[in-house]
């Protein structure tokens, strides 16, 4: 099977129940701007990876393992993995 490069997004968020003072601060800022409609803000981070894999499933499995071991801390965070598609550079090659 041929190996391609996949764009994979890993989204890391604070767990439900874990204090997120950063999200609270952003909500405060939005309120100052007059956005009273915002009931809740949670702030996390997105990590964009390019992964060599033979399939989208394999790229996803690799990213999940990486998130489990390093990108997220399971004590305080949860993560989601999304395979965006084949990386552009690979398509051109």
């Amino acid at each position, binding site marked *: 099977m041929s190996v391609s490069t996949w764009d994979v997004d890993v989204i890391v968020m604070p767990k439900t129940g*874990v*204090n997120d003072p*950063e999200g609270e601060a952003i909500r405060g800022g939005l309120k100052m701007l007059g956005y009273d409609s915002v009931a809740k803000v949670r702030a996390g981070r997105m990590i964009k990876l390019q992964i060599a894999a033979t399939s989208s499933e394999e790229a996803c499995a690799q990213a999940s393992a990486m998130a489990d071991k390093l990108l997220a*801390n399971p*004590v*305080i965070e949860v993560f989601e993995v999304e395979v965006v598609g084949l990386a552009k550079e690979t398509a051109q090659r």
Partner: protein
Amino acid sequence: MTARAGVITFPGSNGDHDALYAYEHVVGIPTRLVDYRETNLDDLDLIILPGGFAYGDHLRCGAIARFAPVVAPLKAFAERGGPVLGICNGFQVLAEAHMLPGAMLRNKSLQFHCQWLHVRVESNHTVWTSNTNPGSVLRLPIANGEGAFFSDEETLNRLEANGQVIFRYCNADGAVDDASNVNGSARSIAGISNERGNVVGLMPHPERACEAFLGGDDGLKILRSALNAINVAV
């Protein structure tokens, strides 16, 4: 033979020389800095992970430091019962390296807190609190932005039941209240130990409270405690 202390310098550590000074010149035992790439710690009797910003605190505080070459021999040292103390960033590294449970969150205030405060000793059944009395109050400085200890309820209950919660933020009289918990730590926890009691992590800086002219010397009680556990003359 004399006890020998080691202070690990990670890229980004900045409290390493404070700890070196405290052990070498105040506690008064031979002490050396340990480079993060070292793999042989056999000459050491106690090891300090100092404060600072190891690997720039990138990703999460302590998250990258756990892959430093020195961590494998550090774990082996701890498994043999060797005294290990993680101060501030060192505590974060111990948590990320799974040598202590829990994790540190951004302070609830979102501010970097640099101040003196009080902690109450909850247990002296650890290598690092054997010179203290339970219920006694220590005055120590903190300097952190991510110092709010967090763990799930089940782990917190287990830590409490095992006596692994060893320091709690309190007021000058030893009362644990919300105002004293400046980081917003779960159950006001300022420091914990592993089950065996030889590995301890705390957010306050005992090494910066080792002489009266620094503002206080309560930290010495912690730094000296470990010597009781080492079977060598000091």
